[in-house]
């Protein structure tokens, strides 16, 4: 695919809209073309006529703020309509990624509260003071390419996950892709990957969690960590759908790899032992073991503190509040007491312990005040 082309619908002033357009276009990763919203009927007609010539759509959350325009709907309404239009084969409209953007305050006031509309969008980004355009553009390009690849022909589960030994994955994850009677829509596949697989630790983990499981302090290890990734861990990097936008690692293969090089089980060793074994077996110098966070004792790390983004033993973590219930094959996210209750990192952005942790937090506070 050439540079993916996104249609961007926004009702804001020319300056504000151009800032977004230029932010994206300057990256040369995606190309963005701006249009003003039209009334619902016309907008629908317009999408049917031309959306197939685009690779994706960006919608501003509020489309009804410009009094010069005859628009009385917002992004979720037209996104819902669009998803329905794609399902009707008579329309001959390909599924494409739908991206939501807004300012922080608007998104928080309405979108974050109305959870029913969350499933409509593949990705959301904030038009904050200094948006990370290259990061957003990479995600959007990956989504566009992934959608196009899925639209081409029916893809097998092995192709989608880019893994031959698919039976090593919990069948409750893969069976939706093999059920002939209930074929997945392209959008369903995309949604499942991004919301269920990429955003929760489980069969796939982020780099920080990968490092935590190996007991490694990423910053202190510097080049040695890069060497370990490039020469050894690269074999266990997820290379399936959307992997050019979301970097993830196969959790089971990392465990197997460690067992193969050491004969030992990763989860039962502390960070120093894990790092010593890796350094010796792989002949890498400079790997540094991560230390326990403040008010924590264990270095048998398996996850990260979502506040500090540093290794944490789940036993010493507090479960993070998440707005959706976890699936039985997903792992919870954790935050350390220090990050949640002392430094209150990102509390204003909704990062907080699960309400069920209230009693534990109280007990920790009492033990610390003694």
């Amino acid at each position, binding site marked *: 695919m050439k540079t993916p082309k996104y249609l961007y619908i926004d009702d804001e002033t020319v300056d504000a809209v151009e800032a977004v357009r230029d932010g994206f276009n300057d990256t040369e990763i995606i190309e963005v073309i701006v249009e003003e919203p039209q009334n619902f009927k016309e907008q629908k007609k317009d999408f049917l006529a031309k959306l197939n010539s685009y690779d994706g759509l960006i919608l501003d959350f509020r489309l009804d703020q410009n009094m010069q325009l005859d628009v009385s709907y917002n992004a979720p309404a037209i996104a819902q309509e669009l998803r329905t239009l794609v399902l009707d084969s008579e329309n001959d409209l390909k599924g494409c990624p739908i991206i939501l953007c807004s300012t922080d305050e608007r998104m928080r006031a309405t979108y974050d509260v109305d959870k029913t509309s969350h499933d409509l969008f593949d990705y959301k980004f904030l038009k904050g003071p200094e948006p990370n355009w290259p990061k957003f553009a990479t995600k959007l390009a990956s989504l566009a390419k992934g959608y196009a690849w899925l639209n081409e022909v029916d893809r097998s589960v092995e192709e989608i996950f880019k893994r031959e030994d698919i*039976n*090593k994955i*919990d*069948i*409750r994850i893969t069976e939706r892709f093999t059920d002939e009677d209930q074929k997945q829509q392209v959008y369903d596949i995309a949604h499942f990957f991004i919301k269920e697989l990429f955003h929760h630790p*489980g*069969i796939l983990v982020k780099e920080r969690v990968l490092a935590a499981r190996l007991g490694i302090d990423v910053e202190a290890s510097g080049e040695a960590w890069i060497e370990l990734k490039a020469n050894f861990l690269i074999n266990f990097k997820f290379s399936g759908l959307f992997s050019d936008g979301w970097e993830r690692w196969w959790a089971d293969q990392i*465990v197997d790899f460690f067992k193969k090089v050491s004969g*030992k*089980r990763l*989860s*039962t*060793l*502390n960070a120093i032992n894990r790092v010593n074994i890796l350094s010796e077996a792989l002949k890498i110098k400079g790997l540094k073991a991560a230390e326990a966070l403040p008010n924590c*004792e*264990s270095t*048998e790390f398996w996850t990260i503190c979502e506040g500090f983004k540093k290794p944490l*033993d*789940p*036993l*010493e973590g507090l479960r993070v509040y998440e707005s959706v*219930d*976890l699936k*039985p*094959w*997903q*792992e*919870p996210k954790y935050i350390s007491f220090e990050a949640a209750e002392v430094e209150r990192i990102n509390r204003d952005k909704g990062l907080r312990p699960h309400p069920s942790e209230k009693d*534990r937090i109280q*007990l920790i506070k009492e033990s610390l005040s003694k």
Partner: protein
Amino acid sequence: MKIEQFRQARADDLKAAASVLEKVFKTGINTSPISLAAENVKTSCPSLMDGSNNPDHWGYTIEDLKIPVDTTKHLRPKGIDKNKVELTLDMKLIANFKQWEDLSDPFIELSFNVAVRGISASGLHYFCFHIDKHDMSKKSEEPHPVYHLQYSSNPQSDGEFDYGSTFHLDTPRILHHPVDFILGIGFLTSNFFPMAYDEIMDQSFFPGLYKRYQEKIVKPYFHTLASNWDYDKSKVVWSPVSDLCPLLL
């Protein structure tokens, strides 16, 4: 019954057990290791330790299954935070399906390893035990009950392990009946999460499943032991049996 049907039935039982655990522990448990074992039992013929295969063999491996712990009494050392205790199960069993219906030894190989971890201000503490089938081809100085429970505190047999002020030597191999995963759920929750055990046994179909596995695994064991003496059921006066073994259904 054909082996395929048999394998499917064992897989269904494991899945049923996983869904009971999900219902009782909610999001406190990731049941993927059980789900993988269910696929495993259905599709693969396990190799024995000596590398041999037999199409009549079935089995599964469950690795790193973490189960919450709620036994807050008698935690030692005293500084252990009762909220920071976690149990990990690693198990493997291999059996011959032709020996499932009679009073044969139900398993060819069994290892059922449990590690409980706790954290205090001075660091990590471990409590481990296993229920194993002893490899009778291996010589040993002590008499080995073929199925035994043995306790240890050093999960990795680490030479540098800090034993604190406890004294450790090979603890007795205590006679124990074999356990598979289904029976293991009862054993582990009744000891480490009694409220969950009660709730699991209140789930409509689980006690029936549990009872069937006791018949296939526990019954051959105790019948064989009892056969050491002349046995006449009408002369048995010690009752109720549930006092001797509360988990027997």
